[in-house]
């Protein structure tokens, strides 16, 4: 399959990064503004902090600006969220409600290590540095 789709891998990575970044940011806006969804905005300081990290981190990752540090922070936030909110209910992510947290944690860890890739502000800055107009 890599033979047929391999040349598309950077584009699929960018799609994944953008979609996951937007979805992640929506978790943040849910906590800060109650949107999307119909639950009220969070009141506890910890949840508001999580909301801020998720909203801004998600946007930074989606547009690919300072994606590596943003993703690293978001990955850590997900790890903390998993161990604080989900792990007490049991170890298996599918059962303790922490599957999304685990996925995001490892995904953002990879984005932090690998970088934003194409279709990102980071990449266009790199391109401009190498071949300035």
């Amino acid at each position, binding site marked *: 399959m890599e033979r047929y789709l391999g040349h598309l*891998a950077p584009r699929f990575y960018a*799609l994944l990064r953008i979609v996951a970044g937007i979805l992640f940011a929506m978790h943040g806006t849910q906590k800060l503004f109650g949107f*999307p969804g119909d639950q009220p905005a969070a009141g506890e300081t910890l949840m508001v902090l999580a909301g801020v990290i998720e909203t801004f981190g998600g946007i930074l990752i989606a547009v690919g600006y300072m994606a590596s540090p943003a993703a690293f922070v978001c990955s850590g936030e997900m790890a903390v969220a998993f161990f604080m909110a989900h792990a007490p209910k049991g170890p298996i992510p599918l059962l303790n409600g922490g599957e*999304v947290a685990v996925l995001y944690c490892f995904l953002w860890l990879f984005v932090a290590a690998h970088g934003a*890739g194409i279709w990102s502000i980071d990449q266009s800055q790199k391109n401009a540095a190498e071949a300035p107009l």
Partner: protein
Amino acid sequence: MSRDRWSSVAFILLRVAAGVMFAMHGTQKLLGWPGTKAPATAALAITAGWIEVVTGVLIAIGLFAGWAAFIASGTMAVAYFLPHAGGGVFPIVNRGELAVLYCFLWLWIAARGARWNLSGDSNRSSSSSSA
């Protein structure tokens, strides 16, 4: 470790964790484990369960992972539009977020490939611009 090496390690962690959790969705449908719900009886659910178990394991161990991921990605796309998209446009509201995440994750891994051994070419970017 070099940046490339960190990237390879992170990719393996992501692939194994996601593959194992994906396979667990399948075992939930086929065996009722993990969890307390009874195994599925509908033919569509049993098919989905088998696909999830087989592709999840293949991706986690890095064997034919490209093909497995491509099939898993399509399964998730179908899974999203069948039960989830009717509940509203935002995956976070219609509870389809997992399906969307898995769909795009598997699509990328289908194109990128994944091998079982740490030094396998597909675990590491072949050039700085590829993903």
